[in-house]
């Protein structure tokens, strides 16, 4: 407190000349309280967001307990038959788990090469001016509402794929994967570009000075140095894809099946998120169906938390690597 006052005094002696050097007990107390109450208020505000996450987690787990304790969990994870509203309901979520992973991985197959190449282009090839124009535009992709993507998938992409490739159905895994790839691109490009350009000039110049070409520098020096950040970018993109709901609900066709043969992207699949969104409305309160949907939610949370931890690990490593160089 006193330090502050003296500091202000030295900076602005004329304005603060009337301020006594010694605080009255009242001023002292109110200053003390203001500092601590302010701190406490900010702490509570910060905690509320942490608390929100925890509450959601607790709520989802709590609502799924009834199902997880009464139903065979192994069967839940390995059975393919998802018939929640049948006479004798069957809750086999394997199809849904496979569906979610299937579209997410397929989306990454499209998005990762494009995303990383775009990131290299933006950070190492194109001029700073052009980069500053292109990057915000790429990031706008993330601002388009997912339902708009969904409409595009159903009304434009699906008929186009039927006509062009002769698919029997246009709302299929390929459709959903393509749209998810576009949605994951901004994340991947943005994070990868940040980590590549954060490496700095010295590293590249050192490489050039040893006679390396631009290609060699990028592939052999820059990419390995930035690999942590790039992996984090890919994992974040995967999270975006696996948690997305509206687009897969509209574009994937929602057929409860595992593609046979496995590489046939032209078949409809159904994801965990779409199942929750589509069936929650009519699953009666307190029924096994509703609890099972919450169990699917828990599964989804576990997956995204796992991916989040992985991405945090790699982002920290990327930061550490930067600190060293």
């Amino acid at each position, binding site marked *: 407190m006193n330090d502050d006052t003296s500091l202000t005094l030295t900076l602005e002696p004329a304005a603060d000349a009337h301020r006594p050097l010694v605080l009255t007990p009242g001023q002292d107390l109110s200053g003390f309280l203001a500092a601590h109450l302010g701190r406490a208020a900010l702490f509570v505000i910060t905690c509320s967001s942490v608390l929100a996450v925890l509450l959601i987690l607790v709520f989802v787990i709590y609502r799924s307990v009834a199902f997880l304790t009464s139903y065979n969990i192994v069967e839940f994870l390995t059975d393919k038959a998802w018939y929640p509203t049948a006479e004798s309901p069957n809750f086999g979520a394997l199809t849904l788990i496979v569906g979610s992973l299937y579209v997410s991985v397929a989306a990454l197959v499209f998005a990762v090469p494009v995303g990383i190449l775009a990131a290299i282009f933006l950070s190492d090839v194109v001029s700073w001016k052009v980069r500053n124009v292109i990057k915000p535009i790429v990031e706008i992709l993330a601002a388009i509402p997912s339902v708009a993507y969904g409409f595009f998938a159903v*009304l434009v992409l699906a008929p186009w794929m039927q006509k062009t490739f002769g698919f*029997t*159905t246009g709302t299929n895994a390929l459709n959903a994967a393509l749209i998810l790839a576009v949605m994951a691109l901004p994340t991947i490009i943005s994070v990868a570009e940040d980590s590549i350009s954060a490496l700095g000039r010295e590293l590249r110049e050192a490489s050039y000075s040893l006679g390396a070409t631009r290609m060699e520098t990028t592939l052999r020096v820059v990419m390995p140095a930035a690999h942590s950040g790039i992996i984090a970018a890919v994992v974040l993109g995967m999270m975006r894809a696996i948690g997305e709901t509206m687009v897969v609900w509209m574009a994937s066709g*929602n057929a409860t099946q595992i593609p046979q043969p496995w590489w046939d992207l032209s078949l409809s699949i*159904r994801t965990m998120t779409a199942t929750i969104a*589509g069936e929650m409305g*009519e699953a009666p309160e307190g029924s096994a169906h509703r609890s099972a949907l919450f169990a699917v939610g828990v599964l989804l949370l576990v997956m995204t938390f796992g991916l989040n931890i992985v991405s945090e690990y790699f982002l920290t490593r990327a930061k550490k690597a930067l600190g060293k160089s």
Partner: protein
Amino acid sequence: MKTTLIGMVLLSLTLGAVRQAETLQIEGSTTVGPIADTFAEYFKSVYPSLDITVKKTGSGDGAAALIDGRCDVATMSRFMKDKEFKDAVGNGIYPVAHVVAMDGVCVIVHPSNPVKALTKDQIRDIYAGKIKNWNQVGGPSMPVVPISRDTSSGTYETFEKLVMSKQAMAPGVEYVNSNPQAHARVKTTRGAIGYVGLGFVDTSVRVLKMDGILPSRQTIASGTYPVTRPLFMFTNGYPKLGSMVHKFCTFHLTEKGQELVEAKGFVPLTNY
């Protein structure tokens, strides 16, 4: 004297405000939603001070809202289930059904498909995965793409109850989350078969005869078309005569009401 006067003025003002804030909460089915919407629009133009909100999330939500006393009118495309009735009575709510219109679930295919009629059993076999190619029902050799509404929709429930008769849908059946989307998918997919309410049928898709009967206003209103269902509004007890809820739930009996029901593609109960 002065205070009494001011008091009376204030009282009348508050009364006026209370009357002005008369509200009508409507919640429930996405199928009955368009009817509730156009009724609400008409009511707003006739009673400008009336505050109507229409929520369209699903029949189950409407029932839940009525049970909790959160709405005045629950719109439903199916009758209340046993459990919902019991819950309502347990909460001191006595649901009364008003049938406001009839709806036929029409089976539609791509206009290029030469198949013009199917039996109910054939349609069931298609959705159960037993018929996989159109040549099994007299069409060209082309895989069938069955498209269903999502399991939380009232249309799905009606279809499942009246067509599927307890058979499970095949794993390959695709699900879409609205009538317009089902229509759009069938319109753009050559091998597709789907089902929508009569109100969503137009010339860009072909409606199939079921068991030899083409869905139309006459066959649906009379119930000869096999997949016909009444659309409901539920209230807590029979509404007080002359109240806004009463006017709303009996509006379909007026000529204007029937006109609006028909304009939305549903079938009025009476011929005017």
